């Protein structure tokens, strides 16, 4: 790979060379992702405990969620991971146009995820009286489902607390991810990430894939409890 006119590789002064900087940046992001595993992990721990204690309530709660949303989000995020990975590849190959296209596509999918979740799914849950702390009072068809599984109402409330907490924290991370993508788009415009120093794109990519992986686990754990038969 020959040097191009976009700009020389920037090596910070505490590093000896670009290789060391790239390894340090990537290693640092992996360690940060390890902290995120433990951060979400606290929620997964509480979830495990209560799912075991109140399986009927968790099953009922899961049935009150719309599986179409869950599956759609999963496919959307997997798609965004593809475009992100292709974006990283584009920056490694020093192709600013391709990189911009992939970053924008990823950005759109990430923003769509958050928008659809808040505007449609969560708002729908609110209308059905399923938001603990605000208006938790399931009625009509929701109440029928709860009774069908012989679940107790407060325990179903507990399920929904976890549902909103876990997907909420996840959504916050998506918003941060969209912010990081915005920064990358600006850097691409300024020619800062296609001159050979693709490490920033790569570490944002690592973050994005991690947030995708969290959702890969949230989908079955929240939407598929007890099956739909």
């Amino acid at each position: 790979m020959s040097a191009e006119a976009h700009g020389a590789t920037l090596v910070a002064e505490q590093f000896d060379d670009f290789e060391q900087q790239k390894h340090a940046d990537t290693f640092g992001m992996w360690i940060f992702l390890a902290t995120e595993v433990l951060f979400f992990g606290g929620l997964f721990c509480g979830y495990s405990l209560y799912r075991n204690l109140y399986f009927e309530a968790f099953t009922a709660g899961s049935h009150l969620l719309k599986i179409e949303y869950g599956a759609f989000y999963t496919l959307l995020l997997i798609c965004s991971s593809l475009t992100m990975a292709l974006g990283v590849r584009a920056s490694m190959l020093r192709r600013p146009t391709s990189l911009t296209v992939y970053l924008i596509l990823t950005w759109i999918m990430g923003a769509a995820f958050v928008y659809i979740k808040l505007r449609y799914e969560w708002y729908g849950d609110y209308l059905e009286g399923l938001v603990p702390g605000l208006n938790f009072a399931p009625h009509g068809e929701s109440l029928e489902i709860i009774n069908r599984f012989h679940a107790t109402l407060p325990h179903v409330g507990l399920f929904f607390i976890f549902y909103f907490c876990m997907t909420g924290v996840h959504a916050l991370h998506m918003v941060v991810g969209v912010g990081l993508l915005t920064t990358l788009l600006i850097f691409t415009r300024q020619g800062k990430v296609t001159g050979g120093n693709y490490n920033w794109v790569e570490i944002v990519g690592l973050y994005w894939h991690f947030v995708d992986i969290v959702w890969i686990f949230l989908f079955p754990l929240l939407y598929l409890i007890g099956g739909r038969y």
Partner: protein
Amino acid sequence: MSEHVHPKRFYVAVFVALVVLTLVTTTVAFVDLGRLNTVVALVIAVCKATLVVLFFMHLKDQTGLTRVVLIAAVIWLAVLIGITMSDVFTRHWVPSNGSWQASAVMQSQP
């Protein structure tokens, strides 16, 4: 040491595998397998996560040190959840009749 750049179709292949697994896990949820439903769902989730980690996140191309970071995080999470659950599961264990624990309990009661 420059990085090996994978061809586009490599990433698309991983993408297709992930989509297929998503469709499988959603479809299986509509089939009654009893306890196995949860197991299958989690196994598929782990497979999908592994695909993302190895190929999208390039862990396959990384040094052992980076893999240790991820493995350590997962192990520590397992310790948190595992030991907490071990408390929950064993809280209500009652000593079996005739054991020394049972007689100790008997003796301590008035």
